[in-house]
Structure formats: C-alpha cells, structure tokens
C-alpha cells in the first residue's frame, strides 16, 4: 500500500492538497484539503450589510 500527496495542486485559485491511498494499483481512499482559511464568515458578522459584498467578493 502506498500513499501519495499532491500539494500544492496548481492552476486553481486557492490552496489545495490531495492525498491518495493506493492498494494494488487502485485508489483505496482519498482526501482533499483546502489548506488556507481566513474566516471571512466571521469578518462579515456585525458589519454594515451594505459592505458585505465588498468583503466576500475577495473570497
């Protein structure tokens, strides 16, 4: 059984890590992780609703 990790996955927007477990030439299990979090959901809490578009468009 072998495990491979592809990190970073390029040509996408954001940071992505893929881990794959291989057994006998077949994928046995796989994991995808977004490896960056800024908490924009928390940043827009309690703000003037009119400016939320400006913050969340920077996603």
């Amino acid at each position, binding site marked *: 059984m072998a495990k491979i990790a592809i990190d970073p996955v390029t040509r996408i927007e954001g940071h992505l890590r893929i881990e794959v477990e291989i057994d006998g030439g077949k994928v046995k299990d796989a994991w995808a992780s977004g490896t960056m979090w800024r908490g*924009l959901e928390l940043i827009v809490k309690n703000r003037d609703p009119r400016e939320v578009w400006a913050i969340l468009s920077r996603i």
Partner: protein
Amino acid sequence: MKEESLFDSLLRRGVSRRDFMKFCTSMAATLALPSAFSAQIAEALEKKQKPYVVWLELSDCAGDSEAILRSSRPTIGQLVLDVISLEYHETIMAPSGHNAEKSLHDVVKNHKGKYIAIVEGAIPMKDGGVYCTIAGRTALEIAKEVCGNAMATLAVGSCASFGGVAAAKPNPTQCVGLKEAVPSATVVNLPGCPVNPENVTATVVHFLTFGTLPALDKNHRPLFAYGKRIHDNCERRPHFDAGQFVQKWGDEGHRLGWCLYEVGCKGPQSYMNCPTIRFNEGTSWPVMAGHPCFACGMPQSWDALGPIYSRLPNVPGASYQATADKVGVAVVGAAAAGVAAHAIIRASTSKGKQENK
C-alpha cells in the same frame, strides 16, 4: 549560451521598436520622471537580462494575479511581467506538488540574493500559522525563506502589504503583512485591492533601470504611486469644491457625476494614483464608475476609516468641508431656483413666440 535580454524577448513576441519606446516613455511618466529618462529606461531594458522572479500566493484570493494576468489584450507591461522569467506561480504554472516546489527551491538555492520575490496575500500568525500551508509548510516559513533570501520583495495588494481583508476585524487568523511577518526582508509595498499592474511594472522597470528600489514612504510604498491624495487628483473634485454632492444612489447628482463624498468616498484620506493611472489600461477607476473610493490601499482600511458608505467626519482642509451638507443644500437650492427661473423665462419666451404666431 547568452541569456535573452528583455528587449530581445519583446522583439521575438512581435513588439515593435516604436511600441517599445512608447512603453518606456509611459513608464517614465508613471514613475514621475522627466521624459528624458525614457531613453535611459530603454537602454537598461535592452541590455538587462531577465530577472528571476518567484510569485508566492499566501492567504490571498488571487485577485492581484487576476489583475495582472487578465487583460483584454496583451500589453507590453504585461509582457515585461511575463518575460521576467517567472519561475514559480501556483495559479499559472504547469507542474504540481513536488515538481512545483522544486522550481521554487531551485531559484532560492541557485540564485540566492539575486531573484525578486513577489508576494500576494497575508501571513496568518495564529496557532503557529496553520491557517495557510503549502506543501506542508506554513506561509510564514515559506515567506521567511523565500523573501529572506531575495534581492527584494514586492508585496502586491493590500493583504501582503498590511494584512488586507484577511486582517479585517476580528482578524480571525491574526493575519499581518509581509514586512511585519519578515522584518528583515527588503520590501516594497504595493497595496490596492487589487494592486494596479501599472505600479508593479513601473517598480520592476525602476529596479532594472537604476538598480535600486524607488523612493518609499514610511509605509514602504513607492512615492511615485502613493505620494498623492486621490481627492486632489479626482475628476469629480470640481463638484466637491462647488458643493455639488450625490445624496442618494441614482439621484440627479449621481446621474450627473457629482462628488461622492456624502455617500462615503474615502478619497480625502487615500494616497494612491488611481485617478491618473486608472485600471484596465486606463479605462476607468471606481469613482469614475460612480462608486465611492473605499481606501482599499490604505493600512487597515476595512476598519480604520469606518463603513464604506458612511461619510468621513469633518475632512480637514478648506472651511467649507465641515459644512458640506449646508453648502450642498444651498447650492442645490440655488440651482433649483436657477432652473425655475430659466423655466419661467423659457415659458414666457415660448408663450411670446406662440403669441407672435
């Protein structure tokens, strides 16, 4: 084999000598240099070899990459950025995983102290920096290694400069700008949300021409781009001076392109060259499009200057600024009176004409 110079590379891509000289002149203008410097810029770009550049994306949205890459036609400025031997850029590079990281390590190892690092995105400091990792390393570790060994680092966009939107209250991941995270690095901050590509190109060109970074302000921003106040270069400034303010979205003043101060414009507190350089090849900029400036390139702009649509309190300067409300009302009143008078005159004139018939 001799490495291709920047000019050779441009020629190979079909850029004419004439266009090249035009570009050098526009760069001299952006850098606020007398036009005579365009010859010196041209000479430097003709001879200089392409500098090695690595582009790091940390806690970002790729908006600055978009600003530089997405263009309706390939400009020479874009080509310069393209031909600067971009060795590493996650969003556009072909290899993934280990092979991608190898490109980065090779530049840091083989060109130590000679490459330019461009950083997009903030650096999260909370919990040991776990909120942004690439290839198992934190953004902070990567920035320390890559920017610490670079000849110079350009922090593009407000996040890399000051923490930006990621550092807006309550700053959940304790994001900071590059200079704060890696104080030993030689950093030029080019804030903006996104950065204006013209300013990135001009900074690189300045470096290639003079071998030094441009003069910086206390926030490590080049004076050529961040030395002048938006309010003083705004095409709507005459309306401010005349007391003509937009009061409500879509009102008569908004349709007529009046000053956006009353609806929250932060131009009086923003030092950037947006009104003169504009975006998308000089097409437009927020205020021109009818939206107030929200000081995107100023430190901690999301919190420091109040909500986007709230008027700045008592902008210092001319005496009428504190009473903009009153002036605005008075002028609108006078204008209305003028319109009414005009209407009466017109009515009486046309009536007279009718009577003449």
